[in-house]
């Protein structure tokens, strides 16, 4: 492992710590909200990762990772972070009551800002990766075959998730259904889509790992 890769690993550890503070810190140590500190750590680590990627280009990821595998890892991290934001929102919405039905309420406003920053970061990193010199080929038949298998696997997972959701909704006692407001249902569907993408990316990176032996 190179010096740059060790530095990137340290940045990832800081990002994980930041994400933990951001999503779990609000109810942590009595009287102290770690959310803003966690968010600052997470975004600082992501920004430094972008700087490293732009500066050291081919040295950030292991040489045995193909361009498509690198993109899959980046997608996995960003989809997981966006998914955590949506889960956080789903946790906060029921407490808002009727306000939850407004498109812009006190819970969704910070979400749009954070998701917007994450999507922007994702686009920047993906475009830097695309510009790396990979010997002329970024995507070949093995990548396409893995992408196809991952998509099929994720579709199967999505079907199971939808069936699970339907069963849960049907089995829910009527008095417990009051929390299921339209905006909450909409966000549950978004969470399902994100779960599908997450499963697809996890399958992809695991398949690449298995094929490396």
């Amino acid at each position: 492992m190179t010096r740059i890769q060790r530095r990137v690993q340290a940045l990832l550890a800081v990002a994980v710590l930041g994400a933990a503070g951001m999503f779990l810190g609000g109810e942590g140590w009595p009287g102290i909200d770690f959310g803003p500190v966690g968010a600052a750590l997470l975004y600082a680590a992501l920004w430094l990762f972008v700087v490293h990627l732009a500066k050291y280009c081919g040295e950030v990821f292991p040489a045995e990772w193909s361009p498509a595998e690198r993109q899959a890892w980046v997608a996995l991290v960003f989809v997981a972070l966006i998914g955590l934001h949506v889960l956080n929102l789903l946790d906060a919405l029921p407490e808002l009551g009727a306000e939850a039905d407004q498109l812009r309420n006190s819970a969704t406003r910070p979400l749009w800002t954070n998701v917007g920053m994450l999507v922007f970061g994702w686009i920047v990193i993906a475009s830097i990766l695309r510009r790396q010199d990979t010997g002329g080929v970024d995507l070949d038949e093995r990548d396409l075959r893995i992408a196809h298998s991952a998509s099929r696997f994720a579709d199967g997972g999505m079907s199971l998730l939808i069936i699970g959701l339907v069963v849960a909704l049907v089995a829910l006692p009527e008095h417990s259904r009051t929390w299921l407001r339209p905006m909450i249902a909409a966000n549950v569907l978004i969470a399902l889509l994100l779960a599908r993408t997450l499963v697809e990316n996890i399958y992809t990176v695991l398949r690449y790992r298995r094929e490396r032996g």
Partner: protein
Amino acid sequence: MSGFAVRNRIREFRQQRADMTQADLAQACGVTRQTIIALEAEKYSPSLELAFRLARSLGRNLEELFRYEEKN
């Protein structure tokens, strides 16, 4: 059917050409270097088209390059 596997001699024939690296072979065949690594480790079986491109790049025929044999 599951008791058989595609074996290949890509690494052996590539190494016989002292100047040919995995990256050179990858470029000649239009795939990534990581796919050549997976092929040489027999973790991936190529499409027929890629098999022909590999054989042509290594100056061999398909029968020399690939074997379909029982797993150990």
